[in-house]
């Protein structure tokens, strides 16, 4: 997995609650057997018109947000389906950070497996950043994971919380399967124990 340390980029607003993973990446893109190339399907039902041209009204199609790598979104972002295609699509498009007041648990987890950073802030902070994004390409945000700090283009700072283990994995680009396999003997003894305690399993 790629490391995540910090990023300075344009942030795009998505002022909508309950943005579900069907909306982030519709089912027609789930037929792939690869992880890559999903960026073209990101928000596709909003991003394109019926004839396949770009819908000029959709935020990521506006010139000032073309290079956005950060999304500021409404509550309960990433709800619905467990499809990891959602973070894959965001990442393939170039979005590395999503900021919201809350995330659906599975989506939140999935981000960390792919070197993406979801940030939870309180309502006031999110609306402040939402306002900030209205300034388009004139307003970049800097997100630094080590110091757990977001800095606006005017130098305002907002701190965010993050689980220590998840932070460590992201900063170092660690593969959790390799980490878990180091505990192979503990897994083995657990298996021996349940064989006698719950033999029906």
């Amino acid at each position, binding site marked *: 997995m790629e490391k995540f340390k910090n990023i300075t980029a344009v942030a795009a607003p998505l*002022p*909508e*609650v*309950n943005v*579900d993973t*069907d*909306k982030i990446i*519709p*089912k*027609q893109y*789930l*037929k*792939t*057997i*690869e*992880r890559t190339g999903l960026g073209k399907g990101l928000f596709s*039902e909003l991003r394109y018109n019926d004839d396949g041209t770009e819908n000029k009204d959709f935020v990521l199609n506006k010139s000032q947000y073309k290079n956005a790598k950060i999304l500021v979104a*409404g*509550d*309960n972002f990433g*709800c*619905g*389906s*467990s*499809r*990891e295609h959602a*973070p894959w699509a965001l990442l393939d498009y170039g979005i590395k950070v999503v900021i919201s007041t*809350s*995330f*659906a*648990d*599975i989506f939140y*987890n*999935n981000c960390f*497996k*792919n070197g993406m950073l979801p940030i939870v802030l309180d309502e006031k902070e999110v609306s402040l950043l939402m306002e900030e994004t209205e300034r388009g390409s004139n307003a970049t945000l800097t997100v630094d994971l080590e110091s757990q700090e977001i800095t606006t283009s005017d130098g305002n700072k907002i701190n965010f919380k993050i*689980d*220590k*283990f998840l932070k460590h994995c992201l900063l170092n680009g660690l593969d*959790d*399967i390799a*980490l*878990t*396999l180091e*505990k192979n003997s*503990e*897994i083995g003894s*657990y*298996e021996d124990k*349940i064989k006698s305690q*719950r*033999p*029906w*399993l």
Partner: protein
Amino acid sequence: MSKSRTIYDKIWDDHLVNTNDDGTSLIYIDRHLVHEVTSPQAFEGLRMTKRKVRCPEKTLAVVDHNVPTTDRKNGIEDEESRIQVEALEKNCKEFGVEYFNELDIRQGIVHVVGPEQGFTLPGTTIMCGDSHTSTHGAFGALAMGIGTSEVEHILATQTLIQRKAKNFRVNVGGTAPDGVTAKDIILSIIGEIGAGGGTGSVIEYTGKAISDLSMEGRMTVCNMSIEGGARAGLIGPDEKTFSYIKDRPRSPKGDDFDRAVDYWNALNSDKDAYFDRDVYLDAAALPPVVTWGTSPEDVVSINGEVPDPEGIDDEIRKETKKSALEYMDLKPGTKIKDIELDVIFIGSCTNGRIEDLREVAKVVEGHHVNENLNAMIVPGSGLVKEQAINEGLDKIFMAAGFEWREPGCSMCLAMNPDKLLPGQRCASTSNRNFEGRQGFRGRTHLVSPAMAAAAAIAGRFVDVRDFVK
């Protein structure tokens, strides 16, 4: 130190392999279900790192999302779907995992198949790369949906790295009136707590209205826990649970079964166990419900009307709900009973089980589907289909003008050819009314099987309680 514990606490404790200083834990996974959409990249990951599946016998794979629901003896026409299905078959062969293909009578929606096979057992941890894995919680199991990276993690290690979630109790007291089903109960709960209300929590459903439910009804309730944002939903096991499990192909037999029942009985939450949050609903006061918007939290009584978002304080929420109405082509104040329908879909892992089909048959027997709409019934599995045929339900459905299909996910997510056309309005027994879920620009209203059946006859929403009279 033995404090009072919830069923979630007990299952968690019994599956801890290890806990780190930072509070993250490694938990053991007893059962792993796999389907074709969320697994190819996980198997590919194993191949690339030269890892094996640690316990192939604890894994069961089935195709469901992509399969056509028409005759499939000649294979799958859509090329991408076919490739994905073939990839699963090949991966299962290579890694030694048992697999039900689309011609196997045991094939069906993964969350219908697990319980049917006795693969789903109380007190187990059950994971699947699918958010509706919460279904299996109906048996008193800890069942969660996960992403593909975690699917790979389980395949390789039979464990997951997790942090413990909160305990959230939803107590549904009273007796549900006739015509008010498990679906109405869970939709009402989601309407109450919101689509993100359960985030970070495991919900335990308790109360008379829950224990009154059959196992099928309990599965419907737990299935939609994820639509309330919960990590998982579960119901303490009881005699109904045990008798459902007994004699299933994969369930424990003989002495093992009796020992298991003792263990399962002891799992129930202790009387004074601590819950981080409690919500109470009175089932006696619930009506049959319908969703009006594009989130499962947009719930309204069949006797109600489309609400006006203008009253919502939060700007972002207000705008979201307004655009939901626009998407649904509905105006505030419209009576739900005045909404006319184009399509009826009965099926999915929420309501594609035998009991659901019986409910539908009861309502539609002797009637005919309204001439203005198409109505389709898709059984949850080959075994559900077989049982329905044995009970003669298929004849009732076909006489009433329903299409009677082969098992699969079908129009619940429209990855196969069963799709709404742009602008079509559907009463669906599935679980998600998201934009485009059942087909590009399609409009979904979630309802119970009985309500969908009544709507199929009337051509618009009706109160099933008036209808059956």
